[in-house]
């Protein structure tokens, strides 16, 4: 029988969330508490397998007594804290963050962006037609994945996944400063000249589709990408003995991309180049 480690029992922290008593284990974030209470708080730079950089500021909430709003994804719940998620002040900042983002980058492949923009009545057009945008051509420098900076919200998730939080390849970092900051490899060169090992774990965590499989990118360009027609099948990678879980996304009997379940206790959604991209032999019908 496998022994399941239970760990040290964690104390519960009691605080007030939107006027209701909330009890969460010590160390939980306000976002954890919100989700436990069934509240919908928008997030972009937060990911289930990563420590958030709290850079997007879309999850901000009102903490009583604080001078500024607090990022729900990173601020830990403290006993006696009084938190409100839906004040005019918090909604204002969320709306502005959406407007600032949508007016500067393309959020068309960001899941939920449309819904949030409607919900918060954001009007990205109001900064005028001359508002600066991140207008860059997608970078296609290899056969596996595409970097489309016009969709990047600089959430730092890819950097963290490539760096010390998962892959330890350190192939990408943020370069430049301010509005000109971009995710890049050294000397802003092509991926093929970098330390990239093509594990695709950055694509796995990208919240906006700025990083995408070449297969998905090409199908979107051709107008044939249709998630409605796709099935997802989770299986086990056959390449080595680790036994990572793969989720095959299949459209019209062709594998179009490979993801991995984030709740896998061993791999947490991470794969290597073989599991992520090495599926062509499966559909070689000659």
């Amino acid at each position: 029988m496998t022994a399941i480690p239970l760990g040290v029992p964690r104390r519960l922290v009691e605080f007030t969330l939107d006027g209701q008593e909330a009890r969460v284990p010590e160390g939980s974030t306000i976002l954890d508490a919100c989700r436990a209470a069934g509240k919908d708080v928008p997030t972009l730079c937060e990911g289930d397998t990563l420590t958030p950089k709290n850079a997007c500021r879309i999850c901000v909430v009102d903490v009583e007594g604080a001078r500024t709003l607090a990022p729900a994804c990173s601020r830990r719940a403290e006993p006696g804290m009084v938190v409100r998620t839906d004040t005019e002040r918090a909604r204002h900042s969320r709306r502005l963050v959406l407007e600032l983002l949508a007016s500067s980058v393309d959020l068309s492949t960001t899941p939920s962006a449309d819904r949030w923009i409607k919900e918060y009545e954001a009007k990205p057009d109001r900064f005028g037609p001359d508002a600066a945008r991140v207008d860059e051509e997608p970078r296609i420098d290899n056969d596996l994945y595409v970097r489309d900076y016009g969709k990047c919200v600089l959430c730092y998730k890819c950097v963290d996944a490539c760096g010390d939080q998962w892959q330890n390849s350190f192939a990408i970092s943020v370069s430049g400063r301010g509005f000109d900051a971009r995710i890049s490899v050294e000397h802003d060169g092509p991926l093929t000249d970098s330390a990239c090992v093509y594990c695709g774990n950055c694509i796995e965590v990208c919240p906006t589709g700025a990083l995408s499989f070449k297969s998905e990118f090409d199908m979107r360009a051709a107008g044939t990408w249709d998630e409605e027609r796709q099935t997802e099948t989770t299986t086990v990678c056959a390449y080595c003995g680790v036994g990572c879980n793969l989720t095959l996304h299949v459209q019209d009997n062709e594998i179009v991309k490979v993801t991995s379940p984030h709740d896998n206790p061993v791999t947490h959604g991470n794969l290597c180049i073989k599991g992520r991209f090495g599926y062509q032999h499966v559909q070689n019908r000659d």
Partner: protein
Amino acid sequence: MDLRFGDGKPTDEERAAVDALLGPPESSWEGADRSDADLRWARGGREARDRRDQLLPALHALNDRVGWISEGALDYVCRRLTVPPAEAYGVATFYAMFSVGPRPATVLHVCTDLACTAAGASELCAAVETRLGPENGVKVERSPCLGLCERAPAALVIRAGDSARPAFEDEAVQAESGGPGAAAPGDGKGKGRRGRNTLHATAVCAPATPDRAVTAATAPESAPTEPAPEAAVPQTGAPGLILLSRIGTVDPASLDDYRAHGGYIALRRAFALGPAAVIREVTDAGLVGRGGAAFPTGRKWQATAAQPDHPHYLVCNADESEPGTFKDRVLMEGDPYALIEAMTIAAYATGAHRGYLYLRGEYPRALARLTHAVEQSRTRGLLGDDVLGQGYAFDIEIRRGAGAYICGEETALFNSIEGHRGEPRSKPPFPVEKGLFGKPTVENNVETLVNVLPILTMGAEAYAAIGTPTSTGPKLFCVSGSVARPGVYELPFGATLGELLTLAGVRDNLRAVLLGGAAGGFVRPDELGIPLTFEGTREAGTTLGSGVVMAFDDTVPLPRLLLRIAEFFRDESCGQCVPCRVGTVRQQEALHRIVDRTGAAAADDIALLREVGRAMRDASICGLGQTAWNAVESAIDRLGAYQ
């Protein structure tokens, strides 16, 4: 870490510059040629990675020597320090003073910030560019505030090149032989290998004319000597000065002279009192931080001293970059030993044995004087393993910034020292708990630290009697703009804005006064009764900030000033969080649209500015974004700009 390095090779010059800092590489694992021995053992692990904090100094070494950072040079630095090339590239591109593309060895930074713009910086820039023409080996860069506002318009020349000593020591050595402020080059500095002059040199040119700027840019080594620091202190020699008393009367290069003028009495008293009593004195004196946030210093020290985690660090924030601020420069140039003594006391009280002095990259003279002063103190046993024979060890390392306003934010400064991008961290945890290298750290501004000396020499009670009950002690103000005698003024807290401006000889037709710099706010000429205290300015709905008092007469077009402030924040935002990264851009765009509009034509954009400003204030990670809208808001609400 299994790092992949590029194939780029450094030039001999680049390799020499890096090796001068880090020493020769020990093995091929660190960038030397591969030998048989390298095949039998590997170097790496924590020991190799622990030198990451040398990244910024290494980039400086390259920039000082070559003037830019090539691919091969960056790869070599990465090999030497076991830093991933992508991260090093991210760091190199973060700082305004570095370039990852080729550029001429000489860079002329022309300040185009508030005081300098009001003094005609745009015309200066245009004239200098025409005069120099495109192909003459000088790159002209428009720079944010260079901290020379009392002598606006200002320019700074930095010429990359070889130096027998690390470049920054030159002036100190000259200062020793030729007295304070001597910057004339010694002879014997010949031509470089290729017949051109390749010695590293800096020259400050203020007030700059096109002629002087061009001359300084083409021959920085023979530029006229910068005026002595006391030229920036109109009160020099006045009785009753506490913080500025030694500026102009003490030789900044002489430790003996400093001691003859009351130096090291405070440190002796500190050793006599013991750490806990020193903290009690500072707390009782009511000292609060002078960098802008006004946090009680005693409480910060106590919190750090009480941390069980060790080692503790002391960081002196000398990254004075707030537009309009130059008090720390004057203190460091005119009385460098005072800062070293004050840092020693702060470290002793908080249980730190290592101090970092993070100095703004645009202050070559302060760097020279402090470097010299640290060396002298070390030689004389005032720094090192046994300070003053008391068995207490403390040493100071000077780190240079490289052109990033954000690095004045305390946690961004930690990241910068550690060799990461100077992006602020989210708080909590606060620095007293997890600061530099993740250890308890006390970080104080230069002026705050220097205030500790009179607290210990006068006693807390006498010090607290100066100023008002809630804002105690003397305060330095940086007065510039439309005044007859711009400079650093020392007044007890509680003097009014009007009194200060009268002292500085404010000119007629005063239109507005900017308090606290770009992150501060404007007040009207009829508000000169505002008492210059933390509580007084707060009550008046404005801020004291770092002590900037910039006067503008009615010849300066207000909308252009606001646009310059907005451009400053757009340029200086680190880009980490969305409200600041995009918000500062939208703010600048809106101010650009309405620069020539008033009334109803500007109303829509002003409403937009208010919304963006509110989100920046509420939702940005750090003080930069949170204050980026302050000055513009105050100009609209208090001055009636755009009406």
